[in-house]
């Protein structure tokens, strides 16, 4: 029979709590990385199509958002079935509200195509970075990096802005997702 004092018992409990935190974070990363890569692929396609056919850009981005929300829900459902983990159905609902608020901002602000291209990634990544303060620093690093690169693109990249954003935002989300799954 093991005999330990209160200090050793407290240390053992602290070890347990640390491991439980890491397991939870790893499970959040598993789910989020899939959603991130899905959005990355959609956004990358959205920017390329917007560059090639600027007149279709408005419809393209509506389609990207609709497919993105549906995909987020599908990935969540898939993960829930596979792992018996509770996927919070409020997540896609929150995403819908978040998108609605974004569209309202764009409408009230009378944004042009360039402003829209800058606004959406910064809007997404700000919320993403804020979430990272609770769920893991990978979120903060990815979010802040994409915001910084978006602003650099706005200031320094001229007519190639959509292609810059395809690489930075679309590529950044895909690479971020892969980075979260590196283990």
């Amino acid at each position: 029979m093991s005999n330990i004092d209160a200090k050793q018992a407290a240390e053992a409990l602290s070890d347990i709590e640390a491991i439980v935190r890491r397991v939870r974070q790893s499970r959040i990363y598993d789910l989020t990385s899939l959603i991130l890569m899905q959005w990355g692929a959609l956004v990358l396609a959205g920017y390329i199509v917007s560059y090639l056919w600027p007149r279709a850009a408005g419809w393209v981005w509506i389609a990207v958002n609709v497919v993105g929300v549906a995909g987020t829900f599908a990935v969540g459902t898939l993960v829930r079935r596979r792992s018996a983990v509770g996927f919070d159905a409020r997540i896609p609902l929150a995403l819908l509200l978040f998108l609605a608020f974004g569209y309202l901002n764009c409408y009230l602000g009378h944004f042009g195509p360039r402003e829209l291209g800058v606004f959406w990634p910064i809007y997404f990544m700000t919320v993403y970075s804020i979430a990272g303060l609770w769920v893991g620093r990978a979120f903060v690093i990815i979010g802040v990096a994409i915001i910084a690169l978006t602003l650099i693109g706005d200031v320094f990249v001229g007519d190639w802005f959509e292609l810059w954003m395809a690489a930075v935002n679309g590529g950044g989300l895909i690479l971020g997702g892969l980075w979260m799954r590196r283990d």
Partner: protein
Amino acid sequence: MAELDDIIHQPLRLKIMAALNALPEGQGLEFVRLKKLTGATDGNLGAHIETLARAAYVTVDKAFVGKKPQTTVTATASGRGAFARHVASLREIIAGVPPAET
């Protein structure tokens, strides 16, 4: 009366059981993921998983995913129960409850 489980009490086995217990019942962790979470070496982790398996606290399933072998470790119901009792004992020790006589 605080009564610690000698099998779970070992630091690495405690971490293994804590990680597996954090999952929903019936779900396991792959060996490589468990290794990363606990910071253990292959040999050390394998040996301690074997000890837990002998005590029927975990099950070990080996399968092939594509061409890659994959080992999954899952806490059993008795393992979860033993872990819960062990944690309760740790809390009792902190609260000043004397350890059980052997």
